[in-house]
């Protein structure tokens, strides 16, 4: 295991201590941070390792939220519903990946973006199952008290984050990660050396969907009420990318740090600039891309190496 992956696990372990310090609101922020870390780490499999600019995160998130939400509405327990949503997303995304991942560059970006649009409209129009535009109520588990509930959902989301991190680390160290890396660098050459690129990309896409859907399912249970424009929000696709760019593409540690840093910034900006916070965020994004194009990792030792390489 590389040092950076060890550091990632240490970071995640540190996050687990949050309930010792924070109150309910800190736990809410922590839950959201874990959720976005799941999204960003998952995105990294397709976007960072394989180099496909995927905007499908929102689609998987919404899919998971609705899949689990509908099942919970039918009386399934949370855990079962979330696992079912994750498996369904894994299968659906793997199959979809085989089709969509034939596209490259902008075309793939748009196709993945449209996926969320299509799913949202489908959910919107399947009124009988999903409540359509009226949204979906998810029954409350039980009135177990503010802190107990906050802690429960925090650890649920944290658990998914841990699993996602493990998945990403395992992928990075096995044949699949190697394959995705090859695909990013040169897809033609990859297939010429006997790599089934379609299969590798599809599995990568499926894995990146699976945990996002699980996060979506937990999210649905957590907020008790979801509606299509909320869970298929394009920002669920865009933010993980900004986070990954912030932290440094491809590096799981960087991506996780990027997620936490981004949310920290967003929270501070949101509190302090009520009227102009989206603009301030925009300025931050622009500055980041112009001056730190490799994210936080460009602050690290390997900057020199990169420089040498580009020279």
């Amino acid at each position, binding site marked *: 295991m590389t040092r950076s992956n060890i550091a990632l696990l240490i970071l995640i372990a540190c996050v687990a201590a949050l309930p010792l310090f924070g109150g309910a609101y800190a736990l809410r922020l922590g839950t959201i941070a874990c959720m976005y870390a799941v999204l960003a780490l998952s995105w990294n499999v397709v976007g960072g390792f394989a180099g496909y600019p995927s905007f499908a995160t929102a689609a998987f998130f919404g899919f998971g939220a609705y899949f689990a939400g509908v099942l919970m509405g039918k009386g399934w327990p949370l855990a079962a519903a979330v696992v079912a949503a994750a498996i369904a997303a894994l299968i659906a995304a793997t199959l979809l990946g085989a089709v969509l991942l034939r596209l490259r560059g902008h075309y793939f970006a748009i196709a993945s973006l449209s996926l969320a649009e299509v799913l949202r409209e489908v959910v919107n129009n399947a009124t009988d199952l999903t409540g359509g535009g009226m949204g979906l109520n998810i029954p409350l588990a039980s009135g177990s008290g503010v802190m107990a509930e906050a802690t429960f959902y925090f650890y649920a989301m944290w658990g998914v984050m841990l699993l996602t991190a493990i998945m990403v680390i395992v992928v990075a160290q*096995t044949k699949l990660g190697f394959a995705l890396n090859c695909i990013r*660098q040169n897809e*033609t*050459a*990859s*297939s*010429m050396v*006997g790599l*089934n690129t379609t299969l590798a990309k599809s599995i990568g896409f499926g894995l990146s969907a699976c945990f996002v859907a699980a996060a979506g399912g937990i999210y649905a249970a957590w907020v008790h009420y979801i509606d299509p424009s909320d869970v298929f929000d394009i920002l669920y696709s865009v933010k993980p990318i900004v986070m990954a760019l912030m932290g440094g593409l491809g590096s799981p540690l960087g991506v996780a740090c990027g997620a936490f840093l981004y949310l920290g910034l967003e929270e501070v900006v949101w509190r302090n600039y009520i009227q102009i916070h989206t603009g301030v965020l925009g300025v931050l994004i622009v500055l980041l891309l112009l001056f730190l194009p490799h994210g936080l990792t460009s602050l690290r030792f390997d900057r020199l190496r990169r420089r040498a*390489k580009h020279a």
Partner: protein
Amino acid sequence: MPELLRLTGVSRRFSGLQALRDVNLSVAPGEVLGLIGPNGAGKTTLVNTICGVTPANSGTILFDGTDITRTKPYQAARRGLSRTFQIVQPFAEFSALDNVAAAALFSQPGESLKSAREAAREHLAFVGLDAQADQPAATLTLAMRKRLELAKALAMQPKLLFLDEVNAGLNSAEVERATELIHQLARSGITIVMIEHLMKVVLNVCTRIVVLHNGHPIADGAPREVISNPAVVEAYLGQQYAQRTARHG
């Protein structure tokens, strides 16, 4: 002698352009076949078609007794068809070692990352790149990258190896070294089909030559025979030969 590769009536079109027209060709095991012809004759397209990159519109391709006309590139690669690219295609960020390891890993079922890297070291040593094993591919010189291509192709343990202009852009010392490598490969029993412009190399290495012109083979036979074939020489080869030999001779 049984055939390793057999093409029957293979054709390929690109929106209006007939790149390959009714190609019949067979390659016997152990042969070193030279594929020559002027630019645009369809040599690289022929390799691409055999490897499944640009599948044939019609005709059949048999490899080692099985029909591979419709197989995908990666399947062809796993069956033992391997190739180098005219324009080298390394994994730029990977080290030379990982480049070769990738080839070993994905072409051989059951290979692990570790065993692939071990195998890769041997192949790098064979092509003389062991000193550069940990260098990113992007930092290698062109000659080194060409050899890296070769190491990658070898790591796939090919039955049939296509060499697409491995000598283009190399100086004469480098060419000599590459030619020696090809000789070694041929001796080790790998069947080779090489696209080559340098007639010196072709005559030196090949056991047979096929001349492709406008997507169609116009001559096929022993090297000396073919280049003295008046039709070939008069049509275009003479001029080419003259130029090439003058430059490199």
